[in-house]
């Protein structure tokens, strides 16, 4: 596995946290900025459109006043018909915006002037010229500028047109009908017009710029393009023909709204060849001429600045995070540099080099504390090791002595089997497994008077060296007492007396002693608080001896022990054991138990003493299952042979 440094861990976590934090902040920021831009753009576009409308109105509105006043003057017969031409000339002289003007009368209005009467003045270069309109080829009564206001009884801004005479200038005509009293009736009498050049429109319209490619366009009342960045469209196309050419019904719908003079700001429901993406459009009607101005811009350009800022922000964030990582690594590495040295020192100390030089710490922080702890540990370890060496030496000595003691102890008990090759009536097998180096269990057997087989098993209270010493004493006493006595009760009583004397450590021993008459099979025994042995009859039954009433030896000097008799038959066996067998504990603190013990015996009634003990040993080992042996285990089986 790849080794990961502490700084890498910290950086990873810090970076993840920072990146998450940035992401959340960025998302919120983006959402709000986007909405703000949208709203601001909307306001700007509306302002721009309104402003443009106003700029155009500033020209058209005042121009309307002139013919309206003239019409009023004509109605009140303020003007004499022979003063009309000079009057019109003065209008042109005083109104730079006005290109031409006429007062056109109804056919035969003046009895002496003929069918047509329409004085007309117009600019030609820098001079102002005059003429009379109307002849067979120009019957002005049927012209839109005359006929429409006449028929609708309302002033009328004409559809823009190119002036045929005057150098291809886009013009429009404003016509105002006037009325005179005829036979007491207010009767339509003619039209006053002014012609306005529209070349200033281009300047106003082309000054409308929104974002990179957004632009403004102007529609006439019929939807004809009056102004558009694409010069080809002007006066050639209407919004409806463009819609048809590009198959965009949505454009036609908007065009219809526009020529009705409506206002709106909407996402355009059409596609344009000019820009393939989503478009926004704002449109406003011109109150005077009923033309309509449209401002259009692409959606993506609206957010172009945002995208730029986004790129910059992302760049800054990446740069910031990189710098953060760099400096964090630097700082952490600097701060944790002693840790590596401490680790090396620790390894050397572990290897036994307690005098190793610790890294020098100048700061008064956790690192200093670590240094002090290390230094303390170094000193303590050093002292501990010195102590340990002494202790170990002492322990080794004791262990060596214990080993010798064990050898001596084990040498005390018979350990050669079969013990009496020349005594066929009896077969014996026994084991003693101490829980510690030396133990407090004992067993012994020997022959008295040539035909009495004496055997004993005991368990000294406590364990270890004191118990082993007490055991040795017990064993020695038993041997010496049984030299003179054959009664188990006497032997045990005598033993009790001897052990009780000066027994300041209050140790005691549970003890069973039996004397088997090899000729008669009579077994006399005395049980001083020991586990009852098991008698295994030849025919296969196994029962425990009854529980003893006698207390262990070594407790009360004057306690009298009695004895019992049991008749053994040839082929019978006696199984003796200490509580290390039936009280063997496993990891769950569960005891081996009398039932298990009897079960093993019942299953092996015909086994030899050696086999029976080995079976029992295996069963106990299996029950304990590797758990530490807490008590000495001693077993002995005596077989009364035929």
């Amino acid at each position: 596995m790849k080794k990961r440094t502490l700084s890498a861990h910290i950086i990873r976590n810090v970076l993840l946290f920072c990146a998450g934090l940035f992401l959340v902040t960025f998302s919120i920021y983006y959402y709000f900025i986007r909405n703000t831009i949208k709203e601001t753009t909307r306001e700007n576009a509306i302002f721009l459109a309104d402003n443009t409308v106003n700029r155009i109105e500033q020209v058209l509105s005042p121009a309307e006043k002139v013919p309206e006043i003239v019409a009023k003057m004509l109605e009140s017969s303020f003007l004499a018909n022979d003063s009309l031409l000079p009057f019109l000339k003065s209008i042109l002289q005083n109104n730079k915006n006005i290109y031409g003007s006429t007062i056109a009368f109804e056919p035969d209005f003046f009895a002496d002037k003929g069918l047509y009467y329409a004085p007309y003045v117009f600019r030609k270069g820098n001079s102002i010229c005059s003429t009379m309109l109307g002849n067979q080829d120009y019957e002005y009564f049927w012209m839109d500028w005359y006929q429409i206001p006449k028929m609708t009884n309302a002033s009328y801004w004409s559809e823009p047109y190119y002036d045929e005479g005057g150098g291809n200038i886009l013009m429009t005509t404003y016509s105002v009908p006037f009325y005179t009293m005829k036979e007491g009736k207010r009767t339509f009498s003619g039209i006053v017009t002014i012609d306005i050049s529209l070349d200033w429109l281009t300047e106003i319209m082309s000054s409308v710029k929104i974002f990179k490619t957004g632009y403004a366009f102007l529609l006439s009342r019929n939807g004809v393009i009056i102004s558009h960045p694409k010069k080809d469209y002007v006066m050639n196309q209407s919004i409806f023909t463009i819609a048809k050419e590009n198959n965009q019904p949505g454009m036609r719908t908007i065009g219809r709204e526009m020529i009705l003079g409506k206002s709106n700001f909407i996402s355009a429901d059409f596609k344009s060849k000019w820009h393939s993406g989503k478009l926004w459009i704002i449109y406003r009607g011109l109150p005077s001429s009923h033309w309509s101005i449209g401002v259009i811009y692409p959606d993506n350009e609206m957010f172009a600045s945002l995208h730029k800022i986004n790129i910059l922000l992302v760049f800054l964030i990446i740069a910031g995070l990189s710098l953060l990582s760099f400096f964090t690594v630097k700082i952490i590495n600097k701060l944790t540099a002693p840790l590596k040295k401490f680790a090396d020192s620790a390894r050397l100390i572990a290897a036994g080099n307690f005098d190793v030089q610790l890294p020098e710490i100048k700061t008064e922080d956790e690192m200093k504390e670590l240094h002090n702890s290390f230094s303390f540990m170094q000193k303590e370890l050093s002292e501990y090791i010195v102590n340990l060496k002494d202790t170990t030496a002492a322990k080794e000595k004791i262990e060596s002595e214990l080993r010798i003691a064990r050898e001596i102890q084990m040498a005390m008990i018979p350990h050669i089997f079969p013990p009496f090759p020349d005594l066929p009536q009896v077969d014996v097998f026994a084991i003693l497994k101490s829980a510690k180096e030396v133990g407090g269990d004992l067993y012994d057997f020997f022959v008295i008077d040539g035909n009495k087989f004496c055997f004993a098993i005991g368990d000294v209270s406590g364990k270890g060296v004191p118990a082993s010493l007490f055991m040795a004493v017990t064993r020695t006493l038993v041997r010496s007492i049984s030299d003179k006595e054959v009664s188990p009760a006497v032997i045990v009583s005598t033993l009790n007396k001897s052990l009780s004397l000066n027994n300041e450590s209050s140790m005691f021993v549970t003890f069973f002693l039996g004397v088997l008459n090899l000729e008669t099979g009579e077994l006399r025994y005395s049980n001083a608080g020991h586990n009852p042995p098991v008698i295994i009859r030849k025919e296969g039954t196994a029962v425990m001896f009854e529980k003893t009433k006698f207390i262990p030896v070594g407790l009360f000097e004057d306690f009298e022990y009695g004895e019992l008799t049991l008749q053994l038959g040839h082929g019978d066996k006696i199984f003796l054991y200490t509580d290390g067998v039936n009280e063997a504990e496993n990891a769950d603190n569960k005891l081996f138990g009398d039932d298990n013990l009897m079960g093993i015996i019942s299953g092996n009634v015909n086994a030899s003493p050696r086999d029976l003990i080995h079976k029992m040993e295996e069963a106990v080992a299996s029950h304990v299952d590797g758990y530490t042996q807490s008590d000495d285990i001693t077993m002995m089986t005596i077989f009364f042979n035929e």
Partner: protein
Amino acid sequence: MNNCVPYLQKTVVLISILLSANLIQAQLPKLVFALQWMPQAQFAGYYVAQEKGFYKDAGIEVEIEHPSAYIKATEMLASGKADLISFSLITAMAAKNQGLDIVNIGQISQHSAIMFVAKKSKGITDLSQLKGKKVGIWKSGFDEVPKALLAEKNIQVEWIPVSSTVNLFMMDGIDAMTVMVYNEYNQIINNGLNEDELSVFAVAKYGYDVPEDGLYCLKSTYENKKLQLEKFLQATLKGWDFAANNKEYAIDVVLNRMKLAHLPTNRVHQAWMLDKVLELMKPGDKNVAAGKLKESDFLKAGEILGQRNKTRPVYGFSDFYKSLLK
């Protein structure tokens, strides 16, 4: 390098001789052809025939003239400024009645393009509802057929002469107006009114399917230049045929002619016009060959003319129509 010069000079001389020979060959008999209106797709076939060299291939040189506001096509014919003109059947017959000795040498359109148009919003959905309404009609002609129709139906209207725009109609100065299906009708659509907002009454539907555009020349011209006129008619029909099969090309040609005449150009409108004009040239339910005038149409036109002007034609079909097609 020096050696090359004489060869170059010789080559130049040779090319010059060849070119002048070509010029001599290009001196073809010339016909001046005047249309009855400004350039538009109504005349696409003639322009195409000229552009594609069909006239030249036929061995004639054709110069196309357009009338101005001041000089009418008939005047150009009378004064000899034009050898032949495109004109509407009824107008031509009226002119002949008035003494202009012209003959029809080919009938291009076979149907009437005239319709009445009214806004449904004005409550007009039936022809009879025009009664008492202000109806716009061309000041410059073509008024005979619609007037005859309403007279026959006994629908009295207030006729309002209008010039060439639909603005008075758009501004509701009039309740209805006469339009050509290929021109003014589409202008109304292109001014923002939807077709479903309009009531349309085509005169053809009421038994007045009088053909319009035909080719006319003075009788004397017919007699003197019969062969050239025949070539002209053949090449013209070929031009129309080509335009019908190559509409985009034909519209390009038309738009180009319009630009040269400083007219507003609008492809959508010209495409509409070409489609409709081509439709009008098809025989439809009439049993007539392309380029020919049907006698029944002549008689119907004469009848209308008699009603309107109280002067029935004093000439027969054979005096009026001189077929140049076999």
